[in-house]
């Protein structure tokens, strides 16, 4: 078998001569490798450009802020709300470069980003990167846990209920998904908190980041996403079930469960994979609310506090960080998609 593989020119039977039989080149041919390489480079360049665009938006939001930044900074640090004299403002403007031309400020900001410098918090004096880094882990736990849980919930719901003979079963599945997809995080969180933590006391009410205290926040974050992923997967699942290749598989003697798991599922998860990059970004913003509901430390709490205080560098830093996560997640999603659907490779 392997001995025949490196043959480059396919030996066509005589009847084949007429056909437009453009047999594809050896899969490991150079042309193909070049195409794949160009694709990867293209992806990375596109990702960098998106990040640069995001940085520009965030930079503009900071500099175009109404009101004087130096005044805001001083007032934030002292907890007052007063007019500042020029003598007070000068050193601040000097230190943060608020008086530099816009282009210089932009170059400084982007240059800082390249070195991982997200600026300095007005309120806490600390570098934003440190502030984020300190609170990152609980939020990452929350978001990744919710992503995994959402996938499991969505797949179980779809594989078990989609395309069944019984109308009631499919309606129950799709109804549950639709309901889950439209439940706001804060409401679901409050209900879970009141019922499972306050009344039944199965989980701690204010539990920090212990595993027991992580269950409800993860669930709160996962359920709406599961509804969303489930709807996308179900639509595709129903469509694929009607495809001729499914009939072909059944005609080979395959049973219903085999058809669902071996053929249909692989096609049906493609849209949900595509959505997952976006979903991770959405989960991080959902975490803001969930952390607030469960009084759980994390990036969301940092963000809410910073928005409240109008500590713009911290807000901008978190937004920039999430944008970066989104970009990286989408490169990974692209990779995952290619693993499931090799058609993307060529």
């Amino acid at each position, binding site marked *: 078998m392997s001995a025949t593989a490196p043959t480059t020119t396919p030996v066509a039977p005589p009847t084949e001569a007429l056909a437009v039989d453009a047999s594809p080149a050896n899969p490991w041919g150079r042309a193909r490798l070049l195409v794949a390489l160009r694709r990867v480079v293209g992806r990375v360049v*596109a990702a960098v*450009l*998106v*990040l640069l*665009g*995001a940085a520009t*938006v*965030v930079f503009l*939001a*900071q500099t*175009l*802020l*109404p009101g004087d930044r130096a005044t805001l900074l001083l007032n934030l640090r002292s907890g007052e709300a007063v007019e500042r004299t020029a003598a007070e403002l000068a050193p601040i403007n000097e230190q943060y470069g608020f008086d530099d031309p816009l282009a210089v400020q932009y170059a400084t900001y982007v240059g800082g980003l390249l070195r991982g410098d997200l600026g300095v918090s007005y309120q806490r004096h600390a570098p934003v990167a440190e502030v984020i880094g300190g609170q990152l882990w609980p939020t990452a736990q929350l978001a990744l846990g919710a992503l995994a849980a959402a996938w499991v919930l969505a797949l179980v719901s779809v594989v078990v209920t989609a395309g069944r003979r019984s109308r009631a079963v499919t309606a129950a599945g799709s109804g549950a998904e*639709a*309901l889950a997809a*439209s*439940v*706001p*995080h*804060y*409401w679901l969180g*409050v*209900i879970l*908190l*009141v019922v499972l933590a*306050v009344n039944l006391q199965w989980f701690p*009410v204010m539990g920090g980041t212990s595993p027991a205290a992580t269950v409800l926040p993860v669930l709160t974050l996962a359920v709406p996403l599961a509804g969303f992923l489930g709807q996308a997967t179900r639509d595709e699942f129903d469509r694929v079930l009607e495809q001729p290749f499914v009939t072909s598989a059944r005609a080979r003697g395959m049973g219903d469960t085999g058809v669902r798991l071996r053929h249909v599922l692989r096609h049906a998860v493609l849209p949900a994979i595509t959505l997952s990059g*976006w979903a991770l*970004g*959405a989960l*991080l*913003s*959902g975490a*803001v*609310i969930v952390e*607030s509901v469960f009084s759980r430390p994390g990036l969301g709490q940092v*963000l*809410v506090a*910073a*928005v*409240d205080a*109008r*500590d*713009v560098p911290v*807000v*901008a830093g*978190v*937004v920039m960080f*999430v*944008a970066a996560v*989104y*970009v990286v997640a989408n490169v990974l999603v692209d990779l995952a998609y290619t693993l499931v659907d090799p058609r993307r490779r060529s």
Partner: protein
Amino acid sequence: MTTQTHAPAARRAPRLVPSLGVVVPATLVGAFVLAAVAPSVLAPGDPTAIDLEAAFLPPSTEHLLGTDQSGRDLWTRVVHGTRHSLLIGLGATGVALAIAAVLGFAAGLGGRLVDRVVGSLIEVSFAFPTMLLALLLVAVRGPSPSTLVLAVGIGSAPGYARMIRGQVLAVRQEAYVEAALALGHRRRDVVVRHVLPNAMRPLVAVVTLGISQSVVWASGLAFLGMGVAPPSPEWGALLEAGRTYVTFAWWLEVMPGLAIVLLAVSVTALGRAAQRRLEGTDR
């Protein structure tokens, strides 16, 4: 009166028997609209009437949804808050659509260069989850209802923009567009008569989904204290006000939330029904 309303319905009956999945959400949406237009019909009381004797009463026949820390009737407050919430949702959707229409149509119709520029702009804005973009805007502008509308509107615009762009590009590829050009019609006329109306059609359903989504987002921001300030009966403000008491007065959180969920689910159901109808009759 009754015969008048019955007669046309009876004539139409054999063609479209509305299913339960349409009647229930339609009734609910009707109730919400009534609450927004004429709240006193559903809740004759005063939403700001304080009665400290009746503070933190759980839901009962007298106080359908219970009372808050100042003894105000929650049902009255939820009904009277409908208008604010709906207006914020509509306003945000309007802002989003306005931005999206400009970007989407420019990209879809403006030639390759414009499409490239707008396309990458949309791509970049997808890197900002709606909620975070909204929070950034609140941090910059300070919390207020107009910031809320703007923030949610700008945050949800990229999704619509991408959809409009995709629609326009898809419709431009349709054979009927080429057929119209082959008849010698002006490109501009073909765009106005075929491309725009057909590209906008699926948006009808999407917009209804967008309104409910906007209400949810706006109330989420308010829940974080970034929206309308608490004395207002706006739903998000009710949520924020109730947070402190959630461990013992659950209804203060659950009931306004229920209103939001009911609105979102019923509007979404109607939108989906409309979508199915459009798709069913068209292709």
